[in-house]
């Protein structure tokens, strides 16, 4: 256990939710990618949070990938369209990505305010005996 343990624990949470935010923004940035039907669609990434191995905070346990199948869309004018006029687009729901974004953002803020309050406690402890 380090001296300023609570700050380290909250920092690990901040890192997890920053990665989560990165993953969601990447998913949204690629939401309209178009690929040939012979290729895979863009796969959304979902961060899986996990309790840290040493029991101090959280960590990213892994990443789950969305469907490589995507959805087939009829766009005959698209230069990537196959002979039947289909292209592949990722199967990502913007609404659910926005919900994830908000959730990760709030969790990020919650962890940062823990750092803030823990700092007040540690400052009081440092000033003991002055």
């Amino acid at each position, binding site marked *: 256990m380090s001296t300023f343990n*609570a700050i380290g*624990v909250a920092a690990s*949470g901040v890192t997890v939710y920053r990665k989560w935010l990165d993953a969601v923004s990447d998913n949204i940035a690629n939401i309209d990618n178009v690929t040939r039907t012979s290729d895979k669609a863009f796969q959304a990434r979902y961060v899986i949070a996990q309790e840290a191995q040493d029991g101090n*905070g959280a960590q990213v346990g892994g990443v789950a990938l969305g469907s490589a199948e995507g959805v087939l869309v009829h766009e005959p004018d698209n230069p990537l369209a196959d002979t039947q006029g289909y292209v592949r687009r990722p199967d990502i729901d913007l609404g659910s990505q926005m919900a994830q974004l908000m959730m990760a953002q709030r969790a990020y803020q*919650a962890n940062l305010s823990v750092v803030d*309050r*823990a700092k*007040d*406690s540690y400052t009081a402890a440092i000033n003991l*005996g002055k």
Partner: protein
Amino acid sequence: MFNDVSSSALRVAVAGLSARQTAIAQNIANIETPGYQARKVKFEEALSTAVDHGASPSSVTPSVQNSLEPSRLNGSNVNLDEETLSHVDTTMRYQLTLRALDSKYSMLRTAITGG
């Protein structure tokens, strides 16, 4: 001189509140961890029983229990409102306890230096 009941009770309280502070940080860090069970640190009852019965407060160690809150859909049962309030409360108690400890020490310092 440093091991009177009130000093050691205050030291145990500081240790307990510090453990609670870390547990709350741990719970908030794992708020979206699937299957995570929130932890609660308890020491007040044991400390007050020890003081009431004239036992040494320094034998009291904080105990960690899993929270009995209902789990959310992802299996985590961290309640952010409760954790936040409890953290504010813990921070203030911690500072109050430190202030009390500080007054004990300043009395000792007065005795040592002769005012």
